[in-house]
């Protein structure tokens, strides 16, 4: 081979550098936003800058964070699951009923509830993948019916769970760190690994980015979609169990609107709502940013209604910035 014919394609690296720089800018920008908000609250909000309060922030977002890892994968796979809140509530209710009315010991009840949640998720995914019903519609149906079922089973009243040892999982702590926070961080590691280092995780990116190419390359597109919904079902249910432990009851009205908190964190974290792109680290930052804002504003005595407005503004601004950074990097 003569050196003359060796034409390197790398002269295009300026463009390439710009794009990977854009990815870095996006995450660095988000990290910067987290730091700026942190500094502002540290200077202005009373009692914000304490270790106890940091843990409170993480504790408050732990249940959302747990679901957000699965939601990140799901959205990267170009799907959506809006049934999170009702699935969480139903899990807490089912656990309480199994334990108090049927006398099922807590560990077995937990296992059964986790199985139920995974099965329901897989079922939703099956309908999505094999009957080609849009995931928004499938999970909308689940969203309304499973909340209804939770109310029906409890007559709308919370069912107390009287087990002191069970309370450890939602309310206890190890070395001063709340258990849900530890679970959230452990699962973050697991899902970071899945998204970056497993065949399944990378296949999710392929399915979300170009489903036809994935199918033609022999990737089992439908099976991956089913598993994705199984994962969010499992994580939502786990979140519901921790909630029941924390509150000491199964509550059919719990976790109202949680699906949108979770989706908001994922989107603020830079995951593309149309699929194919996103990172776990971005979602972690999104979860922390939204949690910190709520916490800081409460400490400053700002009305919860104003918090809602501010959260909306932040979601919009974050998505606008992501879109602009991406557009600049493509052209």
């Amino acid at each position: 081979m003569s050196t003359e014919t060796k034409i390197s394609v790398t002269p295009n690296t300026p463009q390439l550098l710009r794009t990977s720089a854009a990815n870095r800018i996006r995450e660095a920008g988000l990290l910067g936003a987290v730091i700026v908000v942190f500094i502002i609250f540290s200077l202005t909000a009373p009692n914000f800058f304490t270790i106890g309060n940091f843990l409170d922030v993480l504790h408050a977002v732990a249940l959302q964070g747990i679901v957000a890892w699965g939601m990140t994968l799901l959205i990267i796979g170009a799907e959506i699951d809006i049934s999170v809140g009702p699935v969480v509530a139903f899990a807490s209710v089912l656990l309480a009923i199994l334990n108090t009315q049927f006398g099922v010991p807590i560990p077995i009840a937990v296992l059964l509830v986790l199985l139920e949640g995974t099965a329901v998720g897989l079922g939703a995914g099956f309908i999505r993948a094999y009957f080609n019903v849009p995931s928004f519609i499938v999970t909308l149906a689940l969203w309304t019916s499973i909340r209804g079922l939770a109310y029906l089973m409890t007559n709308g009243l919370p069912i107390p769970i009287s087990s002191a040892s069970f309370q450890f999982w939602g309310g206890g702590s190890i070395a001063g760190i709340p258990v849900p926070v530890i679970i959230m961080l452990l699962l973050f590691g697991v899902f970071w690994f899945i998204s970056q280092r497993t065949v399944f995780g990378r296949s999710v990116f392929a399915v979300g980015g170009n489903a036809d190419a994935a199918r033609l390359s022999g990737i089992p597109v439908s099976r991956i979609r089913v598993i994705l919904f199984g994962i969010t079902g499992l994580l939502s249910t786990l979140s519901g169990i921790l909630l029941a432990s924390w509150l000491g009851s199964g509550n059919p009205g719990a976790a109202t609107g949680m699906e949108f908190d979770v989706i908001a964190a994922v989107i603020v974290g830079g995951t593309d709502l149309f699929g194919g792109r996103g990172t776990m680290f971005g979602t972690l930052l999104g979860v922390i940013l939204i949690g910190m804002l709520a916490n800081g504003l409460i400490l400053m005595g700002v009305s919860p209604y104003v918090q809602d407005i501010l959260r909306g503004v932040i979601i919009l601004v974050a998505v606008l910035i992501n879109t602009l950074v991406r557009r600049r990097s493509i052209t």
Partner: protein
Amino acid sequence: MDPLIEQGGDGLGTRPPAEAEVFIRVENVSKQYPGVLALRQVDFSVKAGEVRALLGANGAGKSTLVKVLSGAVQPDSGSLHINGAQVHFTNPTDAIKHGVATVYQELSIVPGLTVAENIMLGQWPHGTVPGSLDRRALFQKARQALKEFDLDLPLEAEAGSLTLAQWQLIEIARAVVHQGRLLILDEPTSSLSAREVRLLMDRVRLLAAKGVAIIFVSHRMQEIQQIAHSITVMRDGSVIDTVSAKSVTTHQIVEMMIGEQQRVRLSAQRTSSAEVILSVRHLTLSSRLQDISFDLHRGEILGVAGLLGSGRTEILRCIMGMIRPDSGTVAVNGTSVHRPSLGKMRRLGIGMTPEDRRGEGFVPFLSTKENLALAGWRYFARGGIISKQALQDNAHDLIARLSIAAASPQVSVSTLSGGNQQKVVIGKWLSAHVHILLLDEPTRGVDVQAKEQIYSLIQDLSMNGMSILYISSEMDELWNVCDRILTLNMGRIVGDFPIAEATLSNVMALAMGGMNTNEY
């Protein structure tokens, strides 16, 4: 053992591999689509290491043949053989398993994955932890595939950040990974710059030298003469001939493509006005258009001939302000238009029918009468409130004038045939009282009878003073309908003939380029 390594190659593939084995062969293959026989008892074969160019006008059957070879279409009769053994492809995956890799014009790249993951798509190596991905092996194999044909791509980069040419190289690398032994390239160079084309050509030559059979669908004679050993020309679903690429001229190829018919222009020649109505000067658009200048006269039908990727659509889009050119001016009625935009051009009386009729031409779920009013609502409304009567009258008038076969003005456009949909899109601009029409492939996907109707409609319109810029990839159609033909080649105007001085084969040969085109 990788067949690419196994067979090796000493030369650079410039010599046809005379004693090589036939890799793929179709025998007596026919394929009937509703209303058209796409393949008529076709015999076709390619040897290992051979680069075969496949040419033919639209509808000649080359894309059907490619689809049969790549498993996307099953023939009605005939047989398919690989290395002498008969095979059946029921889907594209079957073909891939037999070593047939196809790079389509719509590339199958996952933008969010790295280049290495894209190259290895569907063949990711597993690590020791169950379900985990062995990234080291992944990158090593991808690097190996690139090394196979001496190519340098940034393996760690997100594929989305690369250029179209690099995407094509990823697809070719994927074929190497899949141990492809036949690579089908469908008009691979139509959207590439000259430098990128050279790069692609080099890789194709290298792959051929390693024993991979290549089918190269293209009409760019320069490229064909550079890399192909042999040329197969198709016409009307049949293989006309397979000839050596070295000895044949563009004109001979063109003769085979158009055959004996179509020598006589069907419609009478006309003399059009000398009044310039639309004037384009020095239009330049990065690598797509170079110094395009021409005038459109009142009542003239000006054809634009050119291959896919020659810049024909870009000219239209620059005129309408949908793409901003690097430089150049557009003047309407002698007045230069500052920063053209769709709204501005419509107010100046210019309408455009897009190539992608369904995607950009009409709103499928709206009724025919509403679609017919889409470009000129203000003619049917007062103070923003639509007059149902005016809408209805307009629809009745146009349905009669354009003989649109719609049961009533109420039916949705998506229920009409392609030809009638096209008439609605043209009618939309007539409602807006334009006097210049830019038509981009107006007869694409339209049956023969409707084509004739559209031709006569266009000629009627021009008789009544409409000036028309007519883009088509079907050269014989331009030759029959237009008063003058501009020929484009790689973004340049290479010919501008009144129809009286043009011949169909000259226009085609100019558009296809290559050597021996300036001999007439």
